[in-house]
């Protein structure tokens, strides 16, 4: 059985073999990523050339309407599904070029998951602490270390006193907190959370995001949350919106110091430009100007103008 150092070497080796061309040394790089599902004779293109770059230590949210492809993206990045085309790289692993063994180690040590349905995050027949120990057991950790680390993590998520309870004896929020402890048990480089608050009330959802944020800040772990709830943006640094299988816009959130020395959160939305210069216009812009089929572009020294394709309009404005 391979030891921890072996895994590290393999991870580094994989990283060396698959040196990125796009996205530099970012932790997550998706380049023109395509995922096609085939259901019976019907092909569904879930990701249509998606580009995404996530740096180490980021806490981002991926939002989008139902069917936009956000969960597909998470599955691909988590090594659960294989992409159909393009490039996807996480922590140096090329997700298109991994064998089963690499994929297992990747899931065991590089990524962690928190799922939407609380009941599916944990094994019902194990206690909370046993559930947290499980990834470490699979990784060959010693019993004493596992138990120590599991209790430590449960304490971190505020459930030290519930360590020996079964999932059925915990509330939904508590189950999700245990799930977060499970996800970070093996100190992964990135944690993927798929609608982690989807089944929770808003107060509990807020608590969960606080826990995720604490982990992000205290442990420096990268966290990618997939959700269709736009309000999640309040809890993360960056929100990436996906539409029709591609990233459409990003909202950056930063804290500024105002004139009187107070802190205020500033959010700014950006459209995403892909590597070949394509971008998606926000829906509300398109509807407001009744843009259809074609638009007219004009280049100014510091920006680009977009004009509806109505005869004479651009020229008049000019």
């Amino acid at each position, binding site marked *: 059985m391979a030891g921890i150092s072996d895994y590290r070497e393999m991870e580094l080796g994989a990283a060396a073999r698959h040196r990125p061309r796009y996205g530099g040394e970012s932790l997550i790089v998706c380049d023109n990523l395509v995922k096609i599902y085939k259901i019976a004779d019907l092909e569904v293109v879930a990701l249509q050339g998606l580009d995404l770059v996530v740096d180490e230590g980021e806490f981002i949210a991926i939002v989008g309407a139902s*069917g936009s492809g956000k*969960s597909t993206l998470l599955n691909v990045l988590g090594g659960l599904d294989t992409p159909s085309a393009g490039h996807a790289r996480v922590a140096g692993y090329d997700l298109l070029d991994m064998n089963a063994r690499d994929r297992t180690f990747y899931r065991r040590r590089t990524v962690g*998951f928190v799922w939407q349905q609380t009941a599916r995050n944990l*094994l019902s*027949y194990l206690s909370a602490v046993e559930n947290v120990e499980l990834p470490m057991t*699979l990784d060959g950790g010693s019993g004493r270390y596992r138990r120590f680390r599991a209790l430590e993590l449960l304490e971190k998520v505020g459930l030290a006193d519930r360590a020996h309870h079964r999932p059925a004896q915990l509330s939904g929020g508590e189950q999700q907190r245990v799930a977060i402890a499970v996800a970070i048990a093996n100190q992964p480089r990135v944690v993927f959370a798929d609608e982690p608050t989807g089944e929770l009330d808003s107060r509990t959802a807020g608590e969960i995001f606080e826990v995720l944020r604490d982990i992000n800040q205290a442990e420096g772990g990268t966290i990618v949350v997939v959700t269709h709830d736009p309000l999640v943006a309040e809890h993360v640094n960056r929100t990436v919106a996906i539409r029709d299988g591609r990233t459409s816009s990003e909202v950056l959130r930063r804290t500024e110091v105002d004139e009187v020395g107070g802190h205020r959160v500033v959010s700014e939305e950006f459209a995403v430009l892909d590597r070949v210069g394509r971008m998606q216009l926000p829906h509300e812009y398109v509807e407001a100007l009744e843009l259809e089929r074609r638009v007219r572009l004009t280049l100014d020294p510091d920006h680009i103008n977009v004009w509806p394709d109505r005869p004479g309009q651009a020229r008049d404005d000019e």
Partner: protein
Amino acid sequence: MTEQPRRGSLTLGGRVLWSQITSAPAAALTIFVATLLTALFVSGVPRILERVSEDDLREGLAAAEPEQRNISAVSTQRIHGNVQGDPFAHVGDRGEALLTEGFPESLRSIVADRQYVMDTPQFRVTSFPDDTERPFPTNFQFRHQQGIGDHLDLTSGSLPEENQPIEMLFGGECPDDRLAVDDFEESPEVSCFVAFVPVFQAAVTSATAEEMMLHVGDRVFLRPDGSDPLWFIGTNPEDHTFVLEISGIIELSDLSEEYWYADPRLHRPRIVENPDFRSILAFGLMRPDQYDRMLTSMPTRGFRYMWRYFIDPERIEATRAEELRADVARILPPNEEQVFTSLDDLITEFLDQRALTVGLMSTAVTGLLVTAVGLILVLAALIADRQAGATVLIRDRGASRGQLALTGAYTGLLLVASATLLGYLVVTAAMPETDALLAGRGSAVLVLGGTIAVVVAGAPYAFRRLGALQRPDTPADASSGRRIVVEIFVLIAAVASVALLRRRGLADPSEKAAVDFDALLAATPAIIGFGAGLVVLRLMVPLMRSLSWIGGRRRDAVAFLGFRRLISLPAAGRAPTVVVLLAVAVAVFSSVVQVAISEGQERHSWQVAGADFRVEGRAGGVRLPAHLDLAGLADGMSWAEGAEFPDTAVIGLARPPRVSVLAIDADAYRQVLAGSDTEVPALTSLVDGAARSTGPAPVLISSRWGEEGVPDTGTQFALEMGSLDPRVVVAGVVDSFPALSLDEPFVVIGLEDLRRAWGELPVPATVVYLRGPEAETERLDANVDETVGLTLLRSRYEVLAGVAGDPFAQWVDRGLVIIFYLALAFGIVASLSLLTVTASRRRRDLGYLRTLGLTSRQAMMITILEQVPPLVVATLVGAATGGVMARLLAPALDIESFTGGLLAARVVVEPLAILGLTGAIVVLLGVAAISFVAATRDEEYGTLLEVGDQ
């Protein structure tokens, strides 16, 4: 208003029904097929039993001796009369009156033919043609048998006629003036006289003529034999001397003809013979009208009349056997004739055998039925599991628990009732003439049980709290009070049924015949199997928990997770374990009983024949012909010679019994028995003993000895053999010895030892045992034929064919084999359902674990670990339960009645066979588990975990 919910239920049931069945088509189809197979069996068994019963009764009667199966009435009367030339018209009328007035209707209806036979009193032959005195008595009787003219051929002389008296000289030398007999009595000084003596002509068979050394035309004197009670007391035989003239020699038709009633007296004389004594009783035929003449002229109380009523076995219906048996006892002869028949005994024997067959088969069939219902429960649970989401949704939308239960009942009826009906109709079409009552009852039980099983399988989804249903991963509550109560009830029922059975069924062997269909006996194996299953489930939890804990301590994720998953299985996931246990118990029970019967038949054949072939003198203890070349007879086969000494006295013991002695070439006989089921290990002591040249000869003795008990090993005594009384020492006590009767004590001595004891006197062989294939029968038959009736050939293969060919035994054998395979098939399906019933849960759990880094190999091992331990435990415990049940119930089932009845049946559970069975099931399930993991490995985990909304 009250009608509306019912219509709603029906509508809902109709809508949901189809979706329930189609949600798990394989499971639904399996339920249908399993039910159909069971229905075919359950419907078929009573009908086949009925047909077999007819065959068995008819074959049994046909094989019985005529005097056993037929009815005869005997009386001593004087019946005179000659009606229109028929001298026996009144005799025939008496027979007819006896039938019509004395026989119940049921018996009259099975009488196919009748005849009368008439015997005169016995006569003593006082002189023979050559005037030589025979040293031993020769008696003669005349017989008339109705219709005998059609059954004889005249080979020489003529048929008897009426003869006039002849004048004969009595006494010594006579003067020329012969005296009439009246004067003779008044003239004592004269020593001779002349008288007219009646003459009766008779025809005899050549065998009779040969034994009596008579020829056609010979005359012998006969006079009444005073020892025959038919003569009046005080009769002076000499006053009734007459002449028998042999008119001709006849040959009679084959004695095996029903006509002869297996009575050989006309065919050949009866000879009683021993070294000191010989007597002959011969029969002859007179002309029919001469019997009346004799009756008139002789001082007899009458003739012996026998009226024989021939039963036609084909007219007897097995279903009316009991009535018939009762009617035999109700025969009331109008003239106090004595009635002789064993028909009632034969019917009793048949009824006992049928009752035992029903008892045995109902036990096995009930086990199969319960297993089938268990399998239906498991498969229905699978369907219910597939429909769980929809069921929860329907309940969420307002469906009542009653409506859902009713839907389950519809599903059960649709699947189970249709399959049962199909099976019932197929069997009915195949065997329309048989009674359908038991088949109908069995089918009804199957429908009821199957439908209840389907309802019970869906009950958790219909009756559990909705909130609990919406959290399907809630572990099963094994400590629920209701469940504990049910389990305790089953265990109490199991213990009670065994206790009751032991008290009632096994305590009194004389009640064996009353077994028949016995609900308690039939249900006991199933109840015990079910109880054992529940105990296993309970005991398995702490065991698996311990193994899981050990696995966790050893960083073994597979053991840790596999055993923990096993403990957490819901009730539906545990049910297959109980069904597998039941199925294996039923299969092993059937197999053990079937093997015990087969092996018992084999041992019986060895016990009866003593070897594959036994050639012996025409009577026990009579030496084999000197010209018979034993080595040539064996022709390369293993063989051993022996000498039998029946009825030998034992000297030197208190109140010793008379014993049969067999001197056998022990070493050679050991080789003859080698590899058979009748090996006698104690023979070694005779072989070893033969090496000694002095001291008493070692012997084996029967455990059924005299009143003083069996002598201990080392006890010495002598055997009385003429002037040679060899001294022997008991080397071993055996319960049985091949070919030696179990009813009388025996002594087996080494042939070499006996020859040594006898010294110069030869010990001629009276029997030879041969080991060889059945194909040798023809050659041996030819050899034996060459000895012209001096030897007999006994074939073990014939004995085996006879006992195994009994219709009941055959049917039980085949029935048990079918039950074995059906139960095994049900067990395998249940084993596989163990894998599938929790498949969706396992897929999801393994998918989740794979996201944590579980390898596919680990997933496979967890899957195997989750399936195999309960299966191995279920198989082993099931096998043990089946074996124990077979041993426990064997006395009640009276297996010996199917094996010939000589030796006690050996009910043996073969550990290797059990291990083989377990191994086969485990391998099968292992392959299924690997296939399952291989199938899920190719699935993408996003799909597996149903992540997101893509």
